[in-house]
Each structure stands twice: as C-alpha cells, then as structure tokens.
C-alpha cells in the first residue's frame, strides 16, 4: 500500500474540496477499498473519509418511497422495517451478501461502487484491461466459468458483484450524487456501465462526484418481491446467478413486474425484455418461461459458461413461479 493522507469530511462541501486533490478517493466502510488498496489495485494518495457525513438516515419520501442516505450501513438498511415490508427483495439481497461483519461496515454508496471480484482484476501480476486499458483480458480465454453471459465485450467479461444493486436496478431506484458542477439524479439502471471499449470505467460517476443518497420510488411490485441467490456455498459467497423480482398480480394477470439479474453482467441486468413479455399476461409458469427465454435469448456464452445461461433462465422462471404463489 502506498502512503496516503487521510482526511475526514464533515459535510458535502468539505468532501468535495477533499476529492479535488490529486489522487484522492472517497472512503466509506472500507470493505472494498481497503481490500483493493492492500492488493495494490487501488493506489490513492488521499483518502477522504465520508462516513461522518449526515447521510446516515433512511427517510420516507413524500412520494411514498424511501430515501436512503449513502452512508447507511448495509446491516441497518436490511434491518429497517420499511425495507423489509415494502421492498423485501432489497432486504433479502443485502442479507444474502457478504458476512455480518462486512454488512456492519459497508455503506449504501460503497456497495454500489464496489468493484468486480474477477481474480485477474485482483491480481496485479495478471493482465487486465480494467486495471490497465489495452493490456488484455486474462479471463476472456482463461478461467471464466462464473463470468458474464450478457453485455460483455472483448475487452472485459467481468461481472458486478453487488447483491444490493440488483433489486435497486429492478425497482427503478435513483442515485443522487453531488459534485463541483452541482447535483445529478442517476437511475441505478444507468449508473453502472457495460464494459464496451472502456472497461476501466465501472460507473458513469465522475471521479469528483459523491453519492449522497439512493431513492426508491413507491412500487406495488416491490411489496411482493424476493431475491434468489444461487451459489455453491450456502453462505458468504458471491452469486453464480441471482434474481431480484417483484410481481403485482390482479385477476391472475401480471399488472406490474420488475426483474433484474445479478452475477451475469458488468452491471445489474434489468430484464426489460422479460418485463415487456409479462405485462398483462396470465401469471403462469408458461408465461414466465416465455419471458425468461426472451430475455436470455440475447445472452452470449464464453467458452466455459454456457451453463450460466440455462441457470439464469431456470432460476428466473422458478423465482417468478414461487413469487406468484
């Protein structure tokens, strides 16, 4: 780890002033950043600690949704009764992630900004376009059994590891950020990028912008939602594939549906094709299967991960079937 200066921001203004310094990075709970610094992947010269900013509340919005401060710890967010009753998939996703110890420190903002766990990305002695653009992708023809099946590029086949971000993408959440040029509201769906030709950029966030809050609109489909995470180990492991799904059913038909997939792409994958196929149709396994087929039709396997496409399809169907009850 290279030496760095440590600063503690007290408000948004001091945070933005701090980040303007060369080589500065924001520090949240540290559960990903410190890990990456110890690996030599991240080498900031200045850490601006934003955990003492007044962004630690979960508030009801006038619209009937929730506004989650960027500094809210994952464990507090998962334990909040409003999240558990109105957005259960979000609570389930948080609880399926990491460990109790990590959830106590990880923040909402940090969780969104965490970086891929691709082993080649984490190994500074391995070739990686995300760390060094243009150097190559070790996973493309290497060990990639658990890498992307959707939206990957020749430059990068990594997946986004967050569980929390998957239901946020499904439920039309909006990320509020602030920067030297003012405030922006970014839909979560567009917050994370596909790798394209610039795999080094995980999100559309500018380096000097700070995540302030995540806002969830009220959503009937979110009240009847769930998060299914498939993994080899029974706990404390990233997803092979995960599904965040919410259904609002009326008279046996789908009135509103929200679906996002995790573990399959460089970003949480909002399943628009599946949703479109499900609008207004009978909430049956047959419909769910057709929708899943339509969504996964755009999947592209790597040499060793075609099985993930079938898995994603089956888990999506099964999750919707169980949700429909």
């Amino acid at each position, binding site marked *: 780890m290279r*030496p760095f200066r440590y600063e503690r921001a007290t408000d948004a203004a001091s945070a933005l002033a701090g980040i303007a310094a060369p080589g500065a990075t924001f520090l949240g709970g540290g559960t990903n950043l410190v890990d990456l610094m110890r690996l030599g992947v991240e080498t900031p010269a200045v850490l601006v600690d934003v955990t003492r900013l007044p962004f630690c509340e979960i508030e009801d919005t006038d619209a009937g949704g929730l506004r989650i401060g960027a500094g809210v710890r994952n464990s507090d967010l998962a334990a909040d009764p409003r999240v558990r009753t109105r957005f259960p998939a979000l609570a389930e996703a948080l609880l399926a992630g990491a460990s109790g110890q990590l959830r106590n420190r990880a923040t909402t903002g940090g969780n969104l900004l965490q970086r891929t766990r691709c082993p080649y990305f984490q190994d500074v*002695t391995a070739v990686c376009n995300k760390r060094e653009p243009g150097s190559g992708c*070790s996973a493309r023809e*290497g060990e990639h059994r658990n890498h992307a099946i959707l939206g990957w590029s020749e430059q990068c086949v990594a997946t986004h590891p967050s569980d929390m971000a998957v239901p946020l993408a499904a439920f039309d959440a909006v990320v509020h950020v602030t920067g030297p040029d003012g405030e922006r509201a970014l839909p979560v769906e567009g917050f994370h990028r596909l790798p394209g030709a610039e795999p080094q950029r995980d999100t559309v966030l500018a380096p000097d912008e700070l995540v302030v809050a995540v806002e969830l609109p009220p959503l009937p489909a979110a009240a009847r939602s769930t998060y299914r995470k498939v993994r*080899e180990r029974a706990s404390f492991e*990233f997803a092979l594939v995960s599904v965040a799904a919410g259904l609002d059913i009326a008279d046996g038909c789908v009135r509103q549906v929200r679906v996002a997939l995790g573990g399959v792409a460089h970003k949480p994958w909002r399943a628009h094709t599946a949703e479109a196929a499900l609008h207004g149709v009978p909430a049956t396994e047959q419909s769910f299967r057709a929708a899943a087929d339509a969504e996964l039709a755009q999947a592209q396997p790597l040499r060793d991960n075609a099985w993930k496409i079938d*898995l994603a399809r089956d888990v999506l169907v099964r999750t919707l079937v169980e949700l429909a009850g």
Partner: protein
Amino acid sequence: MSVAARSLGAPLSRVEGGEKVRGEAVYAYEHQVEGVVYAVLVTAAIAKGTIRTVDAAAALASPGVLAVLTHENAPQLAERDGELGVLQSPRIAYRGQIVGIVVAETLETAQEAASLVHVEPDAEEHDVVLRADHPTLYKPDTVNPDFATDTEEGDVEGALTAAAVTLDETYTTPAEHNNPMEPHATIARWQDGDLTLWDSNQGAFAAAQAIAKRFGLEPSRVRVLSPHVGGGFGSKGTPRPHVVAAALAAKVVERPVKLAVTRRQMFTLTGYRTPTIQRIRLGADRDGHLTAIAHDVVEQTSTVEEFAEQTAVVTRMLYASPARRTTHRLARLDMPTPSWMRAPGETPGMFALESALDELAIALDLDPVELRVRNEPDVDPESGNPFSSRNLVACLREGAERFGWGRREPRREGRWLVGTGVAASTYPARRRPSTAHGRREEDGSVTIRIAAADIGTGARTVLTQIAADELGLPPGRVHVEIGDSGFGQAMLAGGSMGTASWGTAVVKACRELRAGRDEAHVDTADGAEAEEPLSKHGFGAQFVEARVHADTGEVRVPRMLGVFACGRILNPKTARSQFVGGMTMGLGMALLEETVVDQRLGGFVNRDLALYRVPVNADVGDIEAIWIEEDDPHVNPMGAKGIGEIGIVGAAAAVANAVHHATGVRVRDLPIRPDRLLGRLP
C-alpha cells in the same frame, strides 16, 4: 499391555482451552521479541525462467527499509537446492516462488517496498496443466512416504476379460489447499551463531533439524518453539521456504525478523494436494465378489522436488480380490511442489475407489453396504498378514442402522432431489520413535516435556490424560509441555501418528517415574520392538444424505454420519471433534474446493479464501461421528489408533454417491459443482 483407564476415556476439556478462548494463546507471529523487524516476501510473477535483473533501488530508498535480499546478495546456504533453497539461484521454477525478501522497521513499509522491487525475468514457456497423457509422465522410485510405486498380483487383464461385470471409469480430483486458519509464520533470531525460531509447525524437532541442515549448523544450534499452532493439516509438517527466508533476513540485518506468509502466498509456498487422474477398473462375479481391481493414477510434482502422493496404496489393502494392480505416474510441471494434505493418498484414492464400488453395486443391483461386506478380506490382501483389528463391516452395519439406510429411496421434497450414499473409510495406524522427559516436582506434580505438537488435535490434552493415568494422578497435577525442539527428538504431527508415538514415549517415561525415579529420559527407539507381522489400520463408514436443487444444481448435505473403529478412544470430546473436522473437510472436497490452474497465467488463479471455497458454518448440517470401541493391544500401550485424518477419507465419495442416488447423475470429477449437474438433472 494396555493402560488402565481413569482419565483416559473421559471427555476432558482441552487443557489450553482457557487460553484459547481468552485470546491468550500465543501463536508464532505473536511472540514478543525485542528489536524485531518485519520481512515481506517478493514472489515470481512467471512460472519458468531466469532472473535477468533485479532493481531494488526504489525499495531500498524507502525510509525504514533495512535490506532487500535477492539471489544476488543472499547468504549462501549449506544446501542450496529444492524448495528450501531460497534465493540461491536465479532460476524461477513456479509462479509465486520467492525471489526477494524486503526487511523494514514496519510492516506497512516492508509491504510497500516489496511492491517496488522490480524483477526482470527471461521467461520460458511453461507447462502447468496435468493431463492423463502428459508427455513427461514417469514412474517415481517410491510413493509417499516409502511405498512401492506399482504392485501387481494375479492376472488382472485375464480376470477383467472373464468377469461377469466390469467397470472402467476415470475419476479426477483437482488441486486442493490445506488452508489452515493461521498463515505460516516465523520469527527468526540469531544470537552468537545460535538460531531461535518461533514458528508455526507440526514438529519442532524435525523443523530444527531441517533448518540446521540448510544452514550447515550443528542441530543443537537451532531451537524451534511452537507451543500453539493454528492448524496445519499437513502443510506445516516440514519447514516451508519462508522459514529459511526469515532466517536469511535475520542473518543479514542482524536483528530478529518476523515473517508471515500472506494468504495469497500460501497458495504457492506452503504445499497443496496434487490433482489426480485415476482410472479404476473393476471385475466382479454376479454375486459381487471382486475378481480384479486395477487402480492407475496420474498426478503431478514440481521440477524442484519430487513428491508422489500414494493415491492408489489404499486399494492394496481394502478389499479382497485375487487379481490387483496399482500404479502411480508423475508429471513434472512448472508448479510448486505438492505435499501432504490431510490423509495424503487415502483421500483422493478413496474418492475414486469408493465411487467405483458404488457404480459396481448399482450395476449388480446390490446394496452398496452389502457389496463391501462381500469383499471383506480375511487378511491384508497385499501382505497376507492378519489385521491387528478390523471392524469395517461393523461400522457399515452400525451406520446403516443409525442412518436409516434400509429405508433408502431417492425422493423429491419440493424442488429438491434427495438421496443417500455410503463409502468406506480407512487410515493406517502407525507410530514412530519419540523421546520424552518426565520430572516429579517438589509439590508432587509431574512435568512432562516432549517435542510433540498440538495443531488442534487435542494432543496436549490426551498426553496429559495418558500421563495422569499412568502416574495415578488427577490430570490437573500433570503439566505437559510441547512444541520445543529443545525437548529432544519426537515424531511430528503427521500420518495420524502423533498420539501413538508420543503417548508411547510418555507412558515409558511415566513408568520410570513410577518405579521411583525423580527424572526420566526415555526413547522408544531404544526398545527392540517386535516386528509383528500385522496389518494395522483404523476403519470407518461414511453415510451422507444429499439434496440437489432441480433447477440450480446446488447441493446441500443436511446429514452426515461417520462410524469409526479406531481402537480405544482416549478422549471422546476431542476425538469427536477430530472426526467431524475431517468429515467437514471431506464435504468441502466433495462440493466446494478446487484450486484452478490457468495455463496462460502459469499457475493457480483463485488464491484467496473468497474464491477457494472452504465450508462455512451454514454448509454444515447435522454431522455426527460415533465409534465402535476396539481392543487392539498391538498398536501401542494405549490401544489407540490415530484419528486425525480418517474423517476425511471416503467422505467425498459418500457425497458423490448420495448425489447419484438423488439424481441419477454420476459425477466423477470433483468438486460436484452446479455446472456439472445442470442439464443432466431429471
């Protein structure tokens, strides 16, 4: 010749338990040594080649850096070759090999400086993947530790041709890593030519001897201290390169040096279980009597040392068959040297053999337990010697009863496919000479000193019980000190020989004290031990219930039962923990563990505890271990067989057999991952 029981057989809590739960037990890196400085390793990023230049200027210029050792400036060792020939040559033999050591006043400084050391290699083409048809396959002289490489009895080919039923399948196991919770670590201090090492190892005396040899020192000049060791599972059986590195660094900077191997570095510097490719051929008559067994193994070693895992050796003694062949072939790869990982040989070998037996049982429409009973040998098939005691059948029967084996039908529970499986388990019961010292203190208590190791086995506690009973004292009046090479030769904790070896020495020492002496120095190598022509092994049976998710291929094991016959169980509390610990490792082997090799990268990919999956608490359901007491006076005065390793043996096969029972899918390649099941599930 058995030891009368009073403390033995009682579930005595671990004598060092209080220290461990209060955080007072001191492990290697934690000893307070005055003036200590920090060393961090620099490792090779290529698998094969020669170092052309090393640029340590930036590292040396960092404030607080005391030295950067490389092959260019490191002191010469007396023995310069092999894994312990650290910094003795510019040759790189595997990715992750030590190519430099940075020493600094603080850990943070040393870590950063290590990343600034620039090693420029001339890389050569490397070869890191094991294949059944690898061009360099050769026959080693022996397999670990000293077994014959190949054996053959009877006419295997003829018997296979004539057999009513045959099976010919190949099973594979991946590389697996021991991953004890405590990373390997050493503090090295030179004082007037004497070297003291506070070290994490499975045998202080053996470690001292090995290091003394490397440095060309009289053995008495090296002292190794390891009172508490945070697990080993074989990886701390012999010193690893970092021990030499710490000693070299301390020599150069003339200050005590502490060095811990990072978890990532453990994947290349502290040994691992070789991948195996095993072909099993079985021939049997219609009643399930084996007429031929052939077990041919392909595995790997490095280019710097030979280690040949004795994978097929278990097939030489487990089942009766008039014809039998076992072979081992090694490929030399540009990889680190494999070495011991819990029950080397038996563990991978029994996965293959016990899976094959299950397949044979199904082909014959025979109960898998019954098939094994039918092939129970009267004597050791290889040597012709009688077994000192063998209760495999009793374990199978007892386990079948307890597990509800008779009512065995695969079933569906919601989206889960549920099945059961069984496998046999076995491990040799051996012992080696050890010395021990006993002294009666003024207050009537007794101190026993022996360079034994307690790596979590409970050895310290059991030795206390052995001594207590032998002396007729309550265990609280006996103080056992271990983990100090200064106590003289003692067997290392390995091969499940610890308690057997040390206990025998402790008994001998206590008998001398009881005979009236105030001090006793004993060596069990003195007594001429009759070479009894007996085959000594512990046995067991593993039963597993597995459930497989029909949509995802996730496998969960809600129930595991191990029934063991391992002589006399000296401490039921610690014994149960050992059995269960082994079975848990077997569960990991079956479903989760593999270190993946990438040919282009030139080595292991998943070098951390997130991507190398060991079982977590939620993976373990109801797991039970019970035993059948045996009275075997031939193994040692305590009548106890080693139990530290048998728990893992057969467990993976039992899981694979249960998965097959549940789904009809036979997985012959570990681990049993969802992608190996998906698309094949009913």
